[in-house]
């Protein structure tokens, strides 16, 4: 079901679930962000959201450049229909850091409480992916669910519901971050990158990476490498 009709308004499924995710984040913010911090958090989220939009779109354009350049007459279609989560995550982090630097705010104090919004929003977005038929899984009679996707070939078959599996993983990460309150961003990156690396093996999209791994898998390895360096650096610093 790629579109949802709400009275006179027709929304793409992805847009509908993204709005649900944004609403869930708003509810979370009202309950969990201290009252004194809410205004600045709203501004920081705007900068992070803009960074996420730009980052996700830029990374998509970068990895799809050969395809886009071969169909320049349809550039508006290609530019409007694609984002990469990791690009959005990096863009959101850059946007947040830029905001804290420009307005002289403590970046850890401002952002740590907001990190659980990432898995919460992403979980709803992945459900939207499932209903839209994008980011689909590999064909499987044993592990698959009946799915229909205009982006896949064949369109109608049993596929592994990687979108729903990832949504479940993100909800679990969100719950975990309610109990783990220190350095939430690092904790999220550690677990999400492992999960994403493994789930990519079950994706059914055409080859979209370099050599034997997908772009997201290479980025997951890069994240782990970066976090390991930071851990070693902080270990030596405290020693």
């Amino acid at each position: 079901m790629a579109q949802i009709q709400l009275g006179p308004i027709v929304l793409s499924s992805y847009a509908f679930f993204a709005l649900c995710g944004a609403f869930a984040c708003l509810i979370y913010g009202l309950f969990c962000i201290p009252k004194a911090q809410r205004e600045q958090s709203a501004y920081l989220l705007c900068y992070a959201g803009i960074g996420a939009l730009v980052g996700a779109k830029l990374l998509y354009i970068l990895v799809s450049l050969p395809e886009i350049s071969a169909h320049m007459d349809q550039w508006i279609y290609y530019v409007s229909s694609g984002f990469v989560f990791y690009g959005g995550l990096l863009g959101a982090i850059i946007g947040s850091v830029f905001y804290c630097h420009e307005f002289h705010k403590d970046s850890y104090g401002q952002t740590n409480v907001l990190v659980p919004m990432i898995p919460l929003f992403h979980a709803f977005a992945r459900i939207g992916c499932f209903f839209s038929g994008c980011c689909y899984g590999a064909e499987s009679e044993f592990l698959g669910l009946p799915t229909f996707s205009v982006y896949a070939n064949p369109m109608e078959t049993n596929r592994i519901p990687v979108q729903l599996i990832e949504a479940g993983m993100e909800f679990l990460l969100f719950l975990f971050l309610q109990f783990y309150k220190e350095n939430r961003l690092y904790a999220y990156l550690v677990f999400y990158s492992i999960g994403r690396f493994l789930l990519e093996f079950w994706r059914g999209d055409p080859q979209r990476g370099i050599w034997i791994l997908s772009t997201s898998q290479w980025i997951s390895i890069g994240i782990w490498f970066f976090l390991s360096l930071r851990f070693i650096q902080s270990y030596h610093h405290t020693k």
Partner: protein
Amino acid sequence: MNEQPSNGKAIAGLVLGIVSIVLIFFGAYGAIFGLICGVVGIILSIKARNENLTGIATAGFVCSIIGTVLCAVGFVACACLLGGLASVGASLQ
């Protein structure tokens, strides 16, 4: 005086916010420009609110957010469609 630059930003944010809402009704191309206007409006309104909290800055902030969200919703079809478009071509043959 610091009030004049922030008033200018607040007014610019409000104008861009209204423009982004209007551009929703002009199709995909309108939504792209509306998105850009909304984003710039948000940034200007936040700067204005941080310098000097006024009604115009608040109105610009709200209008810019509404315009940006509506343009994004109207513009975005699906996320993370890497390689999906090639599949469309293959499946339609």
